[in-house]
């Protein structure tokens, strides 16, 4: 359990994090969203005990990070922004060093090293110095050191930044695999990632919490939530008729003239009435689907006001 209470951080006159409060329970994968400079990394640095908060508290499984730092840090695995590592060490030396500091020893240490190296596919670069690794491998080494001691709480600052689509997929699978008995917090600007791995998302901007919910709940705030998109030949006529339906708030015609999107009024469901209309007129429809909502639009809407 991570408990964050009224956490604030001030750098000079700039308030980077402003009385942020939230809790994360075991089994949750929390996506931390926000524009650049929103205070995501600063918040993570305070939760992991790197920075001292100006005010407020963070507790990791009941251990206050400021009052019992060692107990709290033992529960934590952390991937800092940019995945720093000691460049003069080989990957194996580095991971062994982290394992030693984490108090692993003997066969247990070897077992965990083998497991993690296998899971993250680091076999080919074990003897390579960290300085000479590609960005993707560096990031993977960073993830490896964070999960080495099988922590109950895993905090990762942009874990998939700089990875290619295959590597992203692997890291996401890894997160999925670990999710059930852990708390995982990841920060990202990649919104598809939130839909792919997170069970909950928090949007912050200017250090303040602006939205908190499951990805589905957040998407429900989009005006595209429940919107129906269809593609057909006589789109102009259809757009006109659909626009007259009482449930429809607006109809958007997409560029190529054949696709139209009908936006519902708050809380209304469009699919039944539109399909009835299509039946009546026997229009041949090439494509018909209902949208879940657009997270990027919600993100812009929620943070847009704050960024201005």
């Amino acid at each position, binding site marked *: 359990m991570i408990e964050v209470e009224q956490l604030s951080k001030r*750098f000079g006159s700039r308030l980077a994090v402003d009385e942020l409060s939230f809790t994360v329970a075991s089994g949750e994968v929390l996506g931390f969203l926000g524009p650049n400079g929103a205070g995501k990394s600063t918040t993570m*640095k305070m939760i*992991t*005990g*790197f*920075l*001292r908060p100006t005010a407020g508290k963070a507790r990791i499984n009941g251990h206050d990070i400021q009052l019992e*730092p*060692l107990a709290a*840090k*033992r529960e*934590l695995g*952390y991937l*800092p*922004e*940019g995945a*720093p*590592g*000691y*460049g*003069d*060490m080989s990957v194996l*030396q580095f991971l062994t*060093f*982290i394992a*030693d*500091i*984490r*108090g692993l020893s003997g066969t247990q240490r070897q077992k965990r090293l083998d497991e993690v190296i296998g899971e993250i596919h680091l076999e080919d670069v074990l003897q390579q110095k960290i300085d000479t690794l590609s960005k993707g491998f560096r990031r993977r080494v960073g993830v490896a*050191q964070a999960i080495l001691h099988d922590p109950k709480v895993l905090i990762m600052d942009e874990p998939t930044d700089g990875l290619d689509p295959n590597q992203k997929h692997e890291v996401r699978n890894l997160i999925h695999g670990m999710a059930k008995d852990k708390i995982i917090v990841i920060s990202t600007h990649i919104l598809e990632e939130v839909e792919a791995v997170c069970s909950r998302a928090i949007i912050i901007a200017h250090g303040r919490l602006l939205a908190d919910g499951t990805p589905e709940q957040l998407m429900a705030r989009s005006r595209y939530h429940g919107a129906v998109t269809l593609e057909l030949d006589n789109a102009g006529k259809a757009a006109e008729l659909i626009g007259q339906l009482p449930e429809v708030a607006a109809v958007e015609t997409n560029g190529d003239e054949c696709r139209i999107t009908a936006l519902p009024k708050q809380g209304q469901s469009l699919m039944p009435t539109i399909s009835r209309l299509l039946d009546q007129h026997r229009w041949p429809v090439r494509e018909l689907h209902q949208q879940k909502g657009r997270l990027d639009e919600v993100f812009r809407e929620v943070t847009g006001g704050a960024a201005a």
Partner: protein
Amino acid sequence: MNNIVILFKRELKAYFATPLAYVFIVIFLVLSGIFTFYLGNFYERNQADLNSFFIFHPWLYLFLIPAIAMRVWADERKTGTIELLFTLPITMGQAVLAKYLAAWAFVAIALGLTFPIWLTVNYLGNPDNGVILAAYVGSLLMAGCYLAIGVCISALTKSQVIAFIVGLTVCFLFTMSGFPLVLDFFRGWLPGVLVDMVASLSVLTHFQAISRGVLDLRDVVYFIVMIVAWLYACAIFIDMKKAD
């Protein structure tokens, strides 16, 4: 304790993972040789002691120690590994001490490799090996003192070049503070007690006392207090500056 050992080993190995260690050791040995034999007139003095060897150590250390110390924290801050380090379950004290001790151990290795000169003087005559041992201890303590200053300055900046230049300047002031050049500057406006205090802060006077073979407790205490004070300041600076 265990954490200090693990960190210490990592740091010490890091010196030898790059050419830095070898370059430093070679330059240290070559320069100390040149100083001893050419400037110190080791042979011409015709005396069985290592005075002409130890007398140049303050000046050698003045340039070489800040070069070792500059990377200790500046590099850690520049590469961001400081964030990794301080989110591991270790304390500030353990980290500061382990990194410092590793650097000191490295200097001790370099100093230890000057043993041929001790063999030489024992081959040529019958020196007082007690005095030589005391001088080695004094030299190591002095190196530790310069190192603590340099490591502390290194925590203040991300730039190794700045850490080197500022570290060198501060070390220079602490070397020279017993000399009239510095004392005259203070004498104009500081009360006499404080001027005496400045004079007693000089690394040079304390080292010279030890290198004559007199291991006075006051000199040893001076070096230990200096080391502890600078390392304590180092921990405070790291805490203050790690955010930026």
